[in-house]
């Protein structure tokens, strides 16, 4: 994989929903174009309700666009989804409450290759070690804190080694201290496993801290305001937010958001 090969190409994407009474169409996404490179950490940033989640679901092949296209390695996103190339993490951990942590993590493997239980358990345990929750493998989700549950969701998303990790405000319901910690853990997981990440957030700070590239969206119907390359050094630790470069990039983006 070359460092700068386009792996996801989004072209003239539009999405229109019919509202509840099915009378008038609502434009969720106006016209979106951007690319994601292989192995890149891309953040999609925009205000609440601007259609970020819709965009992520279209990228992941869960929703069809009204027009335009999402190509993953030159093929339709749905094709990539059918080949299980996407691991999803949503805002809500969406764990199965009756399954133990371990059973939750190997759920995708159980669906993909149900005959190989020992191997599945091994893979799940490896991921649980990576997210630091191996001690809790026999607990039920309700016995874990919100941050721990979200780590389980990440382990589950990565357990079948998808090429892409698609994350929809995964830490937005956590407290700030936990969120900072989770961001650093996410970066270290990314360094170890090297998936291409598309990360949706409404936090500019989070986007600048995490990503190589931030795609800034406007209010609904969303359009791309600007794609900003974030050339901060890696690996990044908490102290990076005190550097001048970090503030410069943040100020730059804030400025972009002001002059419509």
């Amino acid at each position, binding site marked *: 994989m070359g460092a700068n090969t386009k792996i996801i190409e989004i072209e003239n994407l539009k999405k229109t929903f019919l509202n509840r009474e099915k009378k008038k169409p609502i434009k969720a996404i106006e016209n979106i174009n951007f690319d994601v490179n292989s192995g890149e950490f891309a953040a999609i940033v925009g205000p609440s309700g601007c259609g970020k989640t819709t965009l992520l679901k279209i990228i*992941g092949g869960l929703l069809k666009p009204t027009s335009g296209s999402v190509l993953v390695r030159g093929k339709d996103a749905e094709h990539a*989804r059918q080949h299980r190339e996407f691991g999803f993490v949503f805002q809500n951990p969406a764990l199965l409450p*009756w399954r133990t942590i371990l059973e939750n993590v190997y759920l995708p493997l159980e669906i993909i290759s149900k005959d190989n239980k020992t191997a599945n358990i091994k893979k799940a345990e490896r991921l649980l070690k990576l997210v630091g929750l191996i001690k809790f493998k026999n607990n039920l989700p309700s016995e874990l804190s919100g941050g721990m549950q979200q780590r389980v969701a990440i382990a589950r998303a990565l357990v079948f080694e998808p090429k892409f990790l698609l994350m929809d405000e995964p830490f937005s319901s956590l407290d700030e201290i936990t969120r900072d910690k989770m961001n650093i853990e996410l970066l270290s997981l990314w360094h170890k496993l090297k998936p291409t990440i598309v990360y949706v957030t409404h936090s500019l700070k989070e986007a600048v801290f995490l990503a190589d590239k931030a795609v800034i969206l406007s209010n609904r119907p969303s359009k791309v305001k600007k794609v900003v390359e974030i050339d901060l050094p890696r690996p990044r630790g908490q102290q990076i937010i005190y550097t001048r470069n970090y503030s410069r990039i943040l100020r730059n983006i804030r400025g972009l958001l002001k002059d419509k």
Partner: protein
Amino acid sequence: MLLDGLKKIKMKKAIMQILFYFGILMIWQISSMVLNIPEYILPSPLEIGKEISANLSLLLKHASITFFEAITGFILGTVTAIILALIMVNFKIFEVLVYPLLVMSQTTPKIAIVPFLILWFGYDLLPKIIIAAIVSFFPILVNSVKGLKSADLELLDLMKSYGATNKQVFLKVKFPYALPYIITGLKIGVAFSVIGAIVAEFVGADKGLGYLIMQGNINLDTSFMFAALVILSLLGVALYKIMSIIEKKVLYWHPSVE
């Protein structure tokens, strides 16, 4: 230590319960003696107890018949309700067409159709079983339909991203999510099934606890009526308790289960 504490709290609760009900029976017994209430109006607990022990084998024989009617009807109602719920959830058009009919069937008083059932199916157990099935059916259906629609939407998206088949989605996500609702339906349904059996026995039967109560009524044997009533309520409580035990086993993960 903690477990010991929990056990103690449980023991305490049980003792409180026993004392409470014992107290009520004492008040009943004493006031019935002091106020000299005649037995044919309201027998005292002791008189009822004597009546039960004198007629125990008769009562149990008839209780077993009512139990059989109720439980068979309940199982019949459960199976139909769950199958129908599955069809309704998977074929929207079926829900639209059939739901009004089902609601209408529920607003008709069940007792009004017993004479028809007796006319069609005879005097024996079958009409009672059918009534028990009809009354337990509806709460199970309504709850199952709701439950089967209650799965987390994001989980369904996740299952799609794993490439899960419809069967896998059903078995691993939709059905377990529906279980708390289904079991609530079963708990209501099992209590209703006993009511259904008794009501049907009232209209026309030559056995069962409902029949015994009617017999006691004709003979103005109030103590005997009460004896049958006590056995009947014990039957209901036992069925409900069994459902609760099943609930705790199946829904070990659910917040409603301690």
